[in-house]
């Protein structure tokens, strides 16, 4: 096994080009676990942490560009990110332990391609876009289009994610992410739900994005859920409709972590609870 730590995107792309059995290392919180469990035997590991910009959070077009090696802990201490996208910050903050937070990254969580990844539904709800680099150049891709199937992404051979862009939040907007786990931490989502919404001057939902995780082979953006609350005040009836739509949209399986019925039901419960938090944030309340 070879290990390389290039100083530029170009060097990294060159190292990865045409190499079979290559793995990109950012935080390594998934990669090292797989290595130690002997699930993978890489030929090459390319550490991207030393590439300029990979550990920076930079303001851009009213939003934020987050380098692929920025850790959850760094995001949690970034005042601008916490103010604009608290749901995304909280979602990445749910990954692993305090120690893992010192390493875990948004990009890694996305590329691990687990349907239960916590930060992914939050990024999808936020409308996040990733910058992909590779042998054929650079392209920007919506987060929703990265996961392909459990453990698989749409990235081509030799490509990796260099940064994640969270767009400008907009006025009267807020986001939230909630997951259900049987314990209180150190666990994996049985259901995850991300919501980002903005309100009009009258307090009605002007726009919304609702996403679900762990209830299908990959994260889903539930357009019907957004439509269910579009133009409405989030009263009991609207929240009940939102819950019902999310429960119906979920396509879970029965497995060791939960049943189909349970996951459908909890999809609705979390959507309702997340919407209440996002609405409060949009109104500028602490939530």
């Amino acid at each position, binding site marked *: 096994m070879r290990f390389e730590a290039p100083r530029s995107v170009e060097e990294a792309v060159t190292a990865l080009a045409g190499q079979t059995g290559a793995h990109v290392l950012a935080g390594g919180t998934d990669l090292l676990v797989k290595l130690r469990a*002997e699930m993978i035997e890489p030929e090459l590991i390319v550490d991207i942490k030393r590439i300029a910009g990979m550990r920076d959070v930079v303001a851009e077009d009213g939003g934020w560009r987050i380098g692929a090696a920025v850790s959850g802990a760094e995001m949690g201490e970034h005042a601008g990110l916490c103010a604009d996208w608290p749901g995304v910050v909280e979602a990445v903050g749910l990954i692993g332990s305090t120690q893992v937070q010192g390493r875990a990254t948004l990009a890694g969580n996305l590329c691990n391609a687990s349907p239960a990844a916590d930060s992914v539904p939050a990024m999808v709800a936020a409308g996040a876009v990733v910058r992909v680099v590779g042998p054929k150049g650079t392209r920007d891709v919506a987060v929703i289009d990265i996961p392909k199937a459990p453990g698989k992404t749409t990235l081509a051979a030799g490509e990796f994610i260099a940064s994640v862009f969270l767009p400008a939040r907009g006025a009267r907007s807020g986001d939230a992410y909630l997951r259900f786990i049987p314990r209180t931490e150190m666990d994996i989502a049985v259901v995850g739900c991300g919501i980002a919404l903005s309100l009009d001057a009258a307090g009605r939902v002007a726009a919304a994005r609702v996403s679900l995780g762990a209830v299908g082979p990959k994260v889903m953006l539930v357009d019907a859920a957004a439509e269910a609350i579009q133009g409405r005040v989030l009263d009991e009836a609207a929240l009940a409709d939102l819950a019902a739509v999310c429960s119906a949209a979920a396509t879970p399986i029965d497995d060791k972590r*939960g049943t189909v*019925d349970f996951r459908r039901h909890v999809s609705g419960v979390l959507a309702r609870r997340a919407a209440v938090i996002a609405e409060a944030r949009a109104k500028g309340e602490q939530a």
Partner: protein
Amino acid sequence: MALDDTKKTKDFKVVGTRPNRPDGIDKVTGRARFGADMVAPGMLTGRILRSPHAHARILRIDTSKAEALPGVKAVVTRADFGDVPDHVANVIDNCMAGDKALYDGHAVAAVAANSAAVARKALKLIEVEYEVLPHVTDVDAAMKPGAPVLHEGWQQETVPAGYSGNVISRVEFGHGDVEAGLAKADRVVARTYRTGATHQGYIEPHACLATMSADGQGDLWVCTQGHYMVRNVCAAILGMEQGQLRVTASEIGGGFGGKTVVFLEPVALMLAKKSGRPVKMVMSRSEVLRATGPTASTSIDVRIGMKKDGRITAAFAELRYQGGAYPGSPVDMGSMSAFAPYDLENVKTVGWDVVSNRPKAAAYRAPGAPMAAFAVESAIDELARGFGLDPLAVRLMNGAKEGTRASYGPTYPAIGLIATLEAAHTHPHWTAPLGENQGRGVACGFWFNFGGDTCVSLNVTPDGTVTVSEGNPDIGGSRASMTMMAAEELGIPYDQVRTIIADTGSLGQNEVTDGSRVTFAVGLATIEAARAAKREMCKRAAMIWGIDEEAVEWEDGAARPAGPNAGKFPPMTIKEIAAVASNTGGPIAGHHEVTAEGAGVSFGTHMVDVEVDPDTGATRILRYTVFQDAGRAVHPSYVEGQFQGGAVQGIGWALNEEYIYGEDGILQNAGFLDYRIPVASDLPMIDTVILEIPNPGHPYGVRGVGETPIVPPLAAVANAVSAAAGVRMTRLPMSPPRVLAAMQAAKG
């Protein structure tokens, strides 16, 4: 042990205090050496190939390609062990499958190689031809006629006709007339309860380092609860004399009963023998979960009759425990302990030991008792609540006391159940208000406790400090406790004594660290060894003073003339006597060998508040208090630690922990992500109340405390969840999907 030998509480100077444990610094700094921390020159890495099938006949194993791989130094299969004595036949078959692989993860071959990478590659080169057989993993399914049978012809005569060959044996306990008693009841509850199989969840995986010299002398470094057991079992399997195998226990990162048997050790020794090189083996977490010894899953019918005033008229339980691929589930102890906390006129338990295609169960903290207590304490709770009675008052009314004839036979001496119930009844926790969706549960629990073979040597060094050598791995602070008891008896400070865990070449036979026996039995032997050393030192002082031995007594760390008639001599301290030992007969030591009896049964009562999320079925533990009789708490912090640890493991068992098998008989959750032991943030601080009702069988009144605290929590949590959710939960774990489904079904 005569009662007047028992020290009074007020006399204790060291016992009952809370000094730092002698192994503490090394453990918090990472210097302590655990199983995987040992290395030897020329050491090889051993790896095991495991069955991917739940049940399969092994038609052929071809190891030739693996043996030919450069770097591979030995390959071992069951054939290498040949015939072994009957008492270890199942043990080696569990360590290395013979004709059949009996569960997912059952070892079928092993290699030793220059590196882990080569060993891994070698495993892939071993060809095993399996004939896959039908399998069964559920206890009720395994008992039915027509179920796939694991072992033809193993059924004992105690089993009546009409059961599958997987039903190995039947036990029965009790007295009185259950049916007549039930007929007198105002209400009878009859329910079936089920519990999942749980694992001890020790953090340190099994690990060992084996060497075997050309002349047949073996050495083994191993993480275990009993290195004498490891020596005896491995010697029998390998056809060695016990004296030729020296076993040294590493520090141990948890055991809870799961390290009272061997898994890797005979295989590592055989690999070392074949390769002529030291061989180290370390299990992965997945191997630990797939192929060590979890506890039994159970299915239990209970019928209990009660009068309106709370008096129990009769109690019956039928317990079915599957203990994995070989006989020996803890159903006998479940059957004996089920009704042990109660004074009952009519009581009967019937237990069935069942095999299935799961790893063979090992001991898990009070083996067999928590599941039985879950069933019984749930039924009592349901009856008490049904009559609108105080569940603690009902238990006080029916509780066992001195003179009660236990359901499993003996008549109790002084016991502490009533004291724990009274302490619970008057504790502020019992009357604290509860909020919406919250519930409170209580339950009692019992454990037998054990003594057994014990050998301790206590040596006085030339400078008058003391070393204690004992043969039980320190799993819960026992070095501190032994040090304290030796210091107490000798009348010297705690820091003047150091206790070590000696290897098997240094002491006589010592029983495994199990049955909550160590503080009791090794403590007893330590005290007696100290008394022997004191007698010797009194003898030396008498010699120096020129008076009779009988005229010298020991007090506060010094020999003194016993009275005015003995003569006027200034006291001789242990240091002064030790300094001149070479002139008075040589080194000073005391030792004691005993098969300790009189362990003293132990009772506890637990109380817990929970909140159940009505939308998700998730349970949060809000408050938890343990009340237990410790006899005498030698080191109260470690007694409290045992209470807390038992409660926490029980909470895990109650809420989330469970072996989950697929239709294919493969374990679905062989890792700590999906085998969910509680994490710190799941728990409140567990409060503890130590009761001290001295055990007449121990010089200081000590009772074992390690196991009883895992007996009540399954039921206590289930009673609390049932109260909060408004529906009786009869199946563990009470995972959120199960609780939510039960609440939805109850609503209709």
